[in-house]
């Protein structure tokens, strides 16, 4: 940090501002080496779907959109960008609590920690000769704190946002009234058409016999059967999809909201469990065994969280967008028209008195 920048920052804290505008500051910020490096990194394909990558990317995106109203904001963002770049460079540092996809494969002993500024595997930390156990524990503790912080950022912070802002998501397990009314209408229509089989000589029978002289009105009726069947199918499909999303939604709600306290306990318990295990290994000079599986146990919560965040972003369950009210209304008008045609035919041909 340049000395003149420091003086400008100090001056700003005493309400003496420099001449640059927030746009100029923002441009300057985006043009810094560290932001350029971050931009290049996030454009690459590496580690696209790990929670850690997503967390860092989100923070980077937040930085790019921050308005640099003051020099203070500028330097806070700059420090954060430097921290992000440091984190990104140490991408080999896996978080044992967040290895969801490959938790069965990642060995705990191959998890790296920052030991005196160097990447050192946990397995190697135990074997280091020139350090006391207390010092090793201190180093591991630092990484543990960092890992825990990341878990909180990945799981608890977004959860808190969701709890505080549960907008546009249903609170009750119900199918909307419009869909139920539409279903009843379809049921009645289907029953009416089934009844037609029992009227006089079963009026659509000629269709099946390909008796074209008698079937001039039966073909449209056949088409109506088909359309009613198709509408029934659409309705069922819509309901089942809704139920599927409702089920998924309420599963996510159960996982995240009903048992939110359990998540905190789980995080604390897992952190303690891992810490005590490593502590024992260091003190007894015992080899670290096993994979990250017992410690990466928040995958269900993470999946639920991603789903809920997606819903929250889209302002509702995804199915609602596919089967919106406009489509339901169009289907209704279409079926009503068909119903009117049926009635007209039945009345003019004397099937109904």
């Amino acid at each position, binding site marked *: *940090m340049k*000395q003149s920048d*420091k*003086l400008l920052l*100090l001056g700003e*804290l*005493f*309400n*003496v501002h420099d001449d640059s505008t927030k746009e100029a500051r923002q441009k300057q910020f985006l043009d810094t080496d560290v932001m350029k490096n971050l931009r290049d990194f996030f454009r690459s394909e590496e580690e696209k779907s790990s929670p850690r990558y997503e967390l860092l990317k989100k923070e980077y995106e937040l930085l790019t959109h921050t308005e640099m109203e003051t020099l203070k904001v500028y330097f806070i963002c700059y*420090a954060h960008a430097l921290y992000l770049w440091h984190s990104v460079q140490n991408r080999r540092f896996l978080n044992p609590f967040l290895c969801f996809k490959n938790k069965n494969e990642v060995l705990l002993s191959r998890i790296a920690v920052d030991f005196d500024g160097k990447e050192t595997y946990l397995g190697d930390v135990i074997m280091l000769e020139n350090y006391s156990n207390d010092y090793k524990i201190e180093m591991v503790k630092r990484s543990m704190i960092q890992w825990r912080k990341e878990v909180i950022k990945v799981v608890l912070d977004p959860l808190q946002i969701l709890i505080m802002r549960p907008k546009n998501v249903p609170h009750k397990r119900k199918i909307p009234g419009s869909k139920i009314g539409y279903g009843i209408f379809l049921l009645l229509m289907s029953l009416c058409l089934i009844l037609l089989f029992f009227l006089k000589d079963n009026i659509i029978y000629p269709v099946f016999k390909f008796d074209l002289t008698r079937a001039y009105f039966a073909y449209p009726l056949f088409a109506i059967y088909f359309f009613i069947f198709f509408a029934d199918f659409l309705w069922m499909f819509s309901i089942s999809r809704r139920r599927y999303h409702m089920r998924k939604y309420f599963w996510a709600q159960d996982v995240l909201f009903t048992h939110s306290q359990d998540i905190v306990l789980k995080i604390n318990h897992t952190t303690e469990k891992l810490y005590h295990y490593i502590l024992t290994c260091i003190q007894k000079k015992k080899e670290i065994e096993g994979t990250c599986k017992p410690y990466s146990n928040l995958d269900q919560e993470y999946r639920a969280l991603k789903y809920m965040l997606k819903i929250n972003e889209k302002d509702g369950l995804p199915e609602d967008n596919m089967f919106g009210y406009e489509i339901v209304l169009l289907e209704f008008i279409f079926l009503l028209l068909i119903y009117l045609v049926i009635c007209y035919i039945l009345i003019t041909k004397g099937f109904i008195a």
Partner: protein
Amino acid sequence: MNHKIKFNIHIRDEEFFSLKEFGSKIYLYPEESFALINTKNFLTILKKYDEELYKKVEELRSSETSKEVFLFKIQYLFAPVLPLQYYGVQYKSYEKIGNRILNGAPQIDIYMQDFLRYGLLSYYMRHVGDDHMQSKLYETVLCLEHEFLLNEARAYFKLGFHLDKRDEIVYRRRGYKDVKSFFEMILSPTMINDFAKDFEKNQYLLAWLEYKGYQKEIREFESIVSSVEEWEEKK
């Protein structure tokens, strides 16, 4: 005390006929005085003259590793009623110390720093009873001695401001009392680089701002700067 023993001490062109007289001039002749006090001859005579005083001197000799501190303290053993004096300079009041510190700013006088580094000022205040008479100032000095361990330059200039009770910062022979007008002056394009190059190193400005009660702003400034620099180092 053996009154039969008469002292006759020669240092350069001066002659002292009592320990009190010698003690009052130690600050003018630190090198010679230190050499003399540590001679076997002087200590033997001192022991015969006043055994209790001799024990105190021996205790001081064994406990103090710094020559300056040893001489500062021993002068008050030989001549208990003395003004504050150290390394060739006599200070009639505490304000004079503050005045000297601020007049030299932003340069630091290494001997003046010893008042905080070795706790000489607080020692003197205890010696003359100002720890009770001027308890608020004494507390401030103790705090600054502690702060000196963390930030030497800032504690030094803050001592200057506290002792001198001067509310203004002097830059290029002009005094500024108002923080905003001072910043407007130093942040002008012609001044900024000149002032910026050393302001953090000498801590004069930051000491002044803290003295004026802007601790919160300084903490905020330092926290931002340290986090930027910490990550810059790691980069």
